Each structure stands twice: as C-alpha cells, then as structure tokens.
C-alpha cells in the first residue's frame, strides 16, 4: 500500500510538467494576444490605438518573445520563487487573484455538494425501497427536469423571479452594502440570503444523477441473500438498510471524489457568470477571453493539479474503504 502511494506520488511530477506545458500552449492557440485584446476593446470605445502604440505595449509585456522563451520564463519563476506571473488584465500577481476567490468558490461548492447529498440520498433510498410508487415517480420526474433544464436558464429564471416577486437584490453573492464590509454576522446572513439561488441551480442537476445512481445501486443490493437473512433474523428494516446496502451504494461517490475536488475549485463557470458570482470559474473564462496568459495558464494548471491530487486521494480512500481493492493492490492472495 505504501509502495503504491509512493509510486503514484512520483508519477505526479511528470504529469504536472506535461499539464503545465499543455496549459500554456492552449492559451496561446487563439490568434492574437493580450495586447490585441486591449486594442480591440479600445477600438470599440472609439479609441483607435496606433500600430506604434500596440507594438510598444507588446514589447513592454514581453509578448513579442518566442513562446518557448515565455514558457521557460514562467516555469522558472514558479520553481525558483513561487511566482506564478502577473495578470496583465488586473495588474496583480496571479496567486493573489486566485487565492482571493478560492474561499468563496470552495464554500459555494461545498454547500452545493452538501445540498445535493442531503436532498438526493434520502430520496434515492426512498425511491429504491418504494420502487414504482407514486413518490418514486414524482421525485424522479422532478429530478429529470432539473437535469434537462440548462443551468444558466434556471439561474436567469430564478434571478428574475427573486427580483420581481421577492424583491431581493440580485447579482452577486452580496448586497451592495456588504461587498467590501468586514465579516460580521450580518454579512454572513446576507451571504446566506443570496447563496440559495446558486446552490439550488447548481444542485438540481446533480441531484437527479445522484438519485438515480443510489436507486440503482441500492436495488442491486436489496436482492442479495444477506439482506434476506438479516430480515429473517428479525433486524428492524431501517437497520437492515443502513448497515450494509446503503454503504455499498455510496461506493461510487468515493471513487468520484476527484471530480468533486475539481468542482470545488473550478466552480460552475457559466452559472457563475450569469449570476455574477466572484468565483474562479468566471476568472478563468475572462482570462481566456482576454488572453491573459499567466492567469489562465496557472488556473488550468491548478485545475489539473487538483484533478491529479483528487484522483490519488480518491484511490487511496477507496483502497482504505474497500477491502477487495486493498487485497488487489497488495498482489492478491
């Protein structure tokens, strides 16, 4: 088991190098560069930058150097002094930008996850146990609607409803008064008042999938001999369910932990853009649109890193949880 962990950890290094190279390359694929974006934005305001100004700016940003030189420069900065580069657009160090947003992104993702699990797991269990009942059909129906309706559409609809009928201030996670205020109970309350829309929007699609998965897994288990035996021995029904089959049904969730890691830091980009949330998703989207090289490459690399770590973590957790895998890893016996 220890050997397995070490081997995996070592393999991470070349993976990360490859990811960083690909991330950097991806950013530079679209035609033009950041200075072109500045010129385009200026032109749309009516301010036409001369070619001289554009090339001067390009030199200043170092964007006229060959790509490999820029890549090497960036990697060296990361490795030698932990400098992930500066965002051209914000004129701020990249790590500061990402760090600022990470807190809110994680909070939102964790809340969404909790929402999904709290809603979906009991419903899934109920659906399995009361298969083909009215309740089963009703829940499944709503679940699929949540799955089918696009997230951003749901977000816009909820935004409008909350504006029109509930009179809430919408757009962003805070009301205007609280955006820069220091943390307090009132600010936290304001956050909670706003966060339910993103939570619901992001949660609804997830619940459908979770409900179906739990239902299917549980149904598989409920026909097993050991369940019949437990019942025969007089175990109360809820203990029969909880003790073994439900734990078995939760197996896929552990193995999808790497997904969750990625979700936690990337946030849901489209919904965040629509709702005006200050998460990392819109940050990445904006960086890509602006060709803000270092910010975008760092974010992509970061996401890759989280995926790798998440995969490792979920493999380890699974091995710990599931004795069958443990036996397989230690060579089978």
């Amino acid at each position, binding site marked *: 088991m220890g050997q397995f962990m070490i081997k995996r950890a070592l393999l991470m290094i070349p993976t990360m190098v490859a990811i960083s190279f690909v991330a950097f390359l991806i950013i530079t694929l*679209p*035609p*033009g560069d950041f200075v*072109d*974006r500045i*010129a*385009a*934005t*200026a*032109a*749309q*305001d*009516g*301010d*036409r930058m*001369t*070619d*001289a*100004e554009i*090339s*001067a*700016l390009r*030199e*200043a*940003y*170092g964007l006229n150097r060959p790509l490999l030189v820029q890549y090497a420069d960036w990697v060296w*900065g990361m490795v030698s*002094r932990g*400098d992930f580069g*500066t965002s051209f657009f*914000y*004129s*701020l160090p990249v790590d*500061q*930008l990402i760090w*600022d947003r990470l807190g809110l992104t994680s909070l939102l993702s964790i809340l969404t996850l909790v929402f999904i699990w709290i809603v979906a797991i009991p419903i899934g269990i109920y659906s399995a146990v009361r298969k083909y009942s009215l309740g089963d059909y009703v829940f499944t129906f709503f679940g699929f609607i949540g799955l089918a309706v696009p997230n951003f559409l749901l977000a*816009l609809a909820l*935004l*409008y409803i909350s*504006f029109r009928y509930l009179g809430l*201030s*919408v*757009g*962003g996670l*805070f009301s*205007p008064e609280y*955006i*820069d205020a220091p943390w307090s109970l009132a600010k936290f309350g304001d956050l909670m008042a706003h966060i339910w829309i993103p939570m619901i929007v992001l949660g609804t699609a997830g619940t459908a999938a979770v409900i179906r998965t739990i239902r299917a897994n549980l149904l598989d288990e409920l026909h097993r001999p050991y369940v019949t035996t437990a019942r025969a021995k007089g175990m109360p029904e809820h203990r029969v369910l909880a003790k073994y089959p439900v734990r078995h049904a939760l197996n896929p969730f552990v193995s999808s932990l790497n997904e969750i890691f990625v979700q936690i830091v990337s946030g849901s980009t489209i919904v965040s*853009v*629509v*709702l*005006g949330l*200050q998460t990392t998703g*819109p940050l990445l989207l*904006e960086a890509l*649109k602006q*060709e803000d090289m270092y910010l975008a490459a760092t974010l992509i690399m970061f996401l890759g890193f989280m995926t790798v770590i998440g995969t490792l973590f979920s493999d380890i957790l699974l091995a710990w949880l599931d004795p069958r895998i443990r036996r397989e890893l230690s060579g089978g016996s």
Partner: protein
Amino acid sequence: MMTQSWSGIRKAAQGAATLGLMLVSTSALAQQCSEYTQAPMLNDAVANGALPALASRLPQAPLVSDGVNGTGSYGGQMVSHYGGTRIGDFRSYGYEPLVRWSPDGGEVMPNIAESWSVSDDATTYTFNLRPGMKWSDGEDFNAQDIVFWWEHVETNADINPKGPRKMFVVNGEAATVTALDDYTIEFKWSSPNGVFLLDMASPYGQRVVQFAEHYHSQFIKGLNPEGVAQMMEEAGASDYTQWWIGRVGTYGQNAEYYDPARPSIHAWVPTDSPAGKERFTFERNAYYWKVDSDCNQLPYIDVRSFVLSSDPEVALLRVIQGEIDLSPRNVSTPPNRAVFFDNKERGDYRLVTANSCNYNNAQFMTSMSHPDPVKAEVFQNKDFRIGLSLGMDREAVIDAVYLGQGEPYQIGARPESPFYDEDLARQFTEFDPELAAEHLDKILPMGADGMRVGPDGKPFEFTVHINQGFRPDWVDMMQIISANWAELGLKVVLDVHSDEIGQARRADPDREIFLWVGENGCGQFPVVNLERFTNLGGYANWDNWDAWYAKSLDASFEPADGVTPMEPPANVTRMFEIRDEIPLRTADAQTALMDEFNSIAADEFITFGVALPGGGYRSVSNRLQNVPDTLLEGWLYPGPSPVDFATFWIKE
C-alpha cells in the same frame, strides 16, 4: 439649457488662429466671492487642522461651473457601473484636461487652463494655468508638472518607446514644451498645428496633467535609479517598461487608479486600490479647484462608487433595480428600451435622451487590395458598390433592427456638423433594386441560374465580416440585407465572428467587406477624423494603396510582407494628401479642404453605410439631480462627462 446645435459654432482653434490672440476668461463671478463654502464632511478635518482652510485649498481664480438646474446641496453617494475593462473610461469617471468641450460640443472652454492664446500662424499655443491650484495631496499644481510630464514620461523612451503621441508631432517634429513661468506653459512647433485645441480637449489631452513632479519623480529610472531598482526588486519585476505599466500606468491603463497616494486633479480620488474588487469607491477631493456661482466648492457628491458587472444581463438587472444611478452605454440599447420603460417606478429612475456623435450604425468597407485579382477588380469597381448600396432596404432595417429610430445615411458628417455634405451623406440611399441591377450588370453579369458571375465568367461570391460580440445588431441587419442582395442574384457569405478574434480578423489580408461603426461625426470632429471616412486606419484593406502613398512620402519605406505598393486613383491620392494636410492648416483653409474631401469622397463612393443612429437614451436615478435632459455620447467628445459630474447632486 442643453441644445444640440452643432452648426454655426466655430469658436475653436481654427477661428482663434486667424484672429490671433484669443482670450477666454473664466466667469467674472469668481472674483466676486469673498468667501467660499465647503462640504460639511470636510469641516471636522479643517477644524482639527488635518486640512488647511478652504481659501488656501482653492486657486485664486477657481473655475466656475454651474449645474444645468442651478446650485445643489452637499452629500450623498453616486453609484456607477464598471464593466471590468478600463477603469480610466473618462466618459463615466471624470474628464479634466487643460481645456474641455462645452456640454453641447460646440466650443472649447477653459478647464484647468484659465485662458489660452494661439499665435497668428498657429505654431505656438500658450496656456495660462491657475495660480494657487493644488493637487489632491495639497502640493502646488503648476507648469513644472507639465514640463516634467513631457520630458520624463511622454518623450521618455523607457516608458513610451515609440515616442510622443502624434497629436504632439507636426511634420515629424515633436513639440517644444516650455514653462514660461510657474503658471504659463507653451507648446511650439515650426509648422502650424491647426487642430491642437481639438486634440487637447479630447480624452487624449488629459495625459498632460496626470503626472505630478513631486510624486512621480520617484518612479523615473533616470531620476531615481536606486529607488526604482529597489521597488522593482520588491515587486519581482525585471523589465522597467512592464513594471511601469503595472505600477504607475499611463493613458487608460488601470494601474493609474490603483495607487491611492497618487495625486490627482479629479473631483473624486480613490481611497483604496480598486484592483480586483467588485465594488470600489472614490471620495471627494478636498483640493478640487471648481466652485459654483454661489461660491460653493464642488463637487456636491461626497462619494462615487463603481460596481462591477461584467455580464450585460446582470448589469441590466442592477440598473432596473435602481442600484445604478446612471445607466452604462452597453445596456442602454434600443432593444432594452421596453425593459427600462416598464420598470421606471420600481427602479425609481427616469429616462433621458442620449444623442450619439456617431454618423452611422454600420460602415461597409470594401477591400481595395484583395489578393485575388477577380475580387480585386470587382471590389474596386464603383458600380459594384452603388449596386450594393441601392440594393439595400434601409427603411426595413431601421424599422426592424433599430426600432424605427434613425434615417438612411452614408459615410459622412452628421447633419448638425458644419462639415455636413448632402451629396455624400444621402446619395444612393434609396431602395431601388432595378437601378441596382443595372449598375451590377456592368461588372457582374447575370448567370444562367439567376446568380451573378464575375468578370471571369465564374460564379462570384463575397464575404461580409461581422463582429458579433461588438455589435449584435449587425447580425440582424445582415439577415435583411443579405436577403435583399440575394434577390439581385448576389451570393453573400456572412462571416460572423466573436469579439475575441475580431482583432485578428481585421488584420487578415483576405478580408473582403469589413463592418465597423462610424464614429466622431459630430461638430468639428470630422476634421481630425478623416481616416474614418476612408479606410479607418487599416480596417478596410487598402494596404497596397497605403504602401504606395507611404513610399511616395518616404522612399525608404518598406512595405510589409505580401503587400505590393500600388498606385491608387488620383482622387484617392488627393484624399490621403488632404488627410495629412488638414492638421497643418487653420480655419478657412480647413473648411476648403474638407469641402474638397467631401466632394471627392462623394464622387469615389468607396465606402457606404446604412443608417444614422437615433433613439439613444440613458436611465438616470430620480435621486440624481442636475443631469441634463439631453446627453451626448461619443469618444472624442467623451460624452456624457463634459456635462460635468461635479455639478450633479443627490436628493434623498
């Protein structure tokens, strides 16, 4: 009150130069104030000595600026929208050059400069500053700051590698900037500069007053080598120019606003760095140098906040909720007018008219240097362009896409401008498919299957490039126009591309018909804007012509790869010549040249357009007072800021 009459008002530099000395003085009322009043929020600071008394904070002769509905009261917060790109968008933030445009855009008026004079031959411009005027940190503002800016920023090769902006360069010669005394600054060339006042009143003129010598000396490598080296090391920067862009910033770069310690002459100054924030505030500048005619120091409003929404839909929701006091331009579009109207009570705002300085919603620029010889032949043929123009149902486009606002128009100055030319602006705007077909038959004969063929007999198609992110209305417009053209047997390909690759598209040598808006067509701006009436500095592919003309001026000019200098028709050469000559002339000579330019442009009919913009509006919160009922929008006239935000006030 506000009028939008452009015509007949020519009190700008052109008139000044021929008249000789022109002194425009500030209102005599300023001298009548024995005592000034300040905002209550400053009283405490003055009482306990943190701020000097008001009399010593104001210049001896402050600028008198009155709101459109008179004196206001102090206090309150104005909330504006910020789209996430350039903070330094002076149209919504603030506009404080040496001289400014009047609210109706008809004349240049004093701002930081109390008065000015222009030599008879327009080679020398002398501006008189205001003795006693201070930066926001209390230090004197004088001519030395302007000299500092010229010597150490604008002409500093480390900061401005390609040299000073062309508005300061006449015939290749950069200006000589001298401080005649502490409060008089002179710009001088050996040839006449007929448009300098126009340029100084434009957003670009603000660079002159953005650098305080006492503060910015520390960032100039030549003046403070060790200090700069240390600051760069702390920031981990290796390149001076790049560090400067991120730390100090020049001309529209956001870093200009990131440093709360940076002295400023605006009405509100940042209290904290706005970098990366969702909402940032600017607070009253206690040293602001304007008063109203009741001797109150401006601005009335204590705080200006900017709220970030990068998504236009979220911005729209915020505006109709009443969170934003003056709606931003990008959501105040004709399609959204109904939403704005419906929510007037809920959002507690009113709508005001916003007239545009643009002369066209869409300018069709055909490539004159297309690599394919067949296409080049067709595009260069005037009958082709006339056919396309006559074949467009402009009324249908105006009704469907622009909600009936505007009128059919070509590429020329707006009707209110003194440079309006009826022929140029209105020719070929009728919808006449038969006449169009006649013109098209001369260059694109009708093929057997009802589609036109090129001069080589092969099926002919051409592409129109549309930047959908910039102007989604072009997509709708082209649906109608393509259908019109299809009926004439023309095959049109629509290249609808996103904003992100717009810049790359416009540099593509294969581009055929490129669309852009027609800007700066009001008042006197056409004079400094002639390139927009031609190829817009490269948006249309005139590369071969441009190269030929550049080479004719300078034999050592090397054309770019793939560009072959080709002599344009004599008329077009004359257009280039006029474009270069106008800035060197004054008043009447400029008018004569513009007339010539207009008639050549009408004859050649190289570019054509769709419609004059109309029906613009903005929403203004009912708490915000002193906002005129008619605003003007534009760029060289940076509307709406010339109406002076410092005169707005909040009524709770």
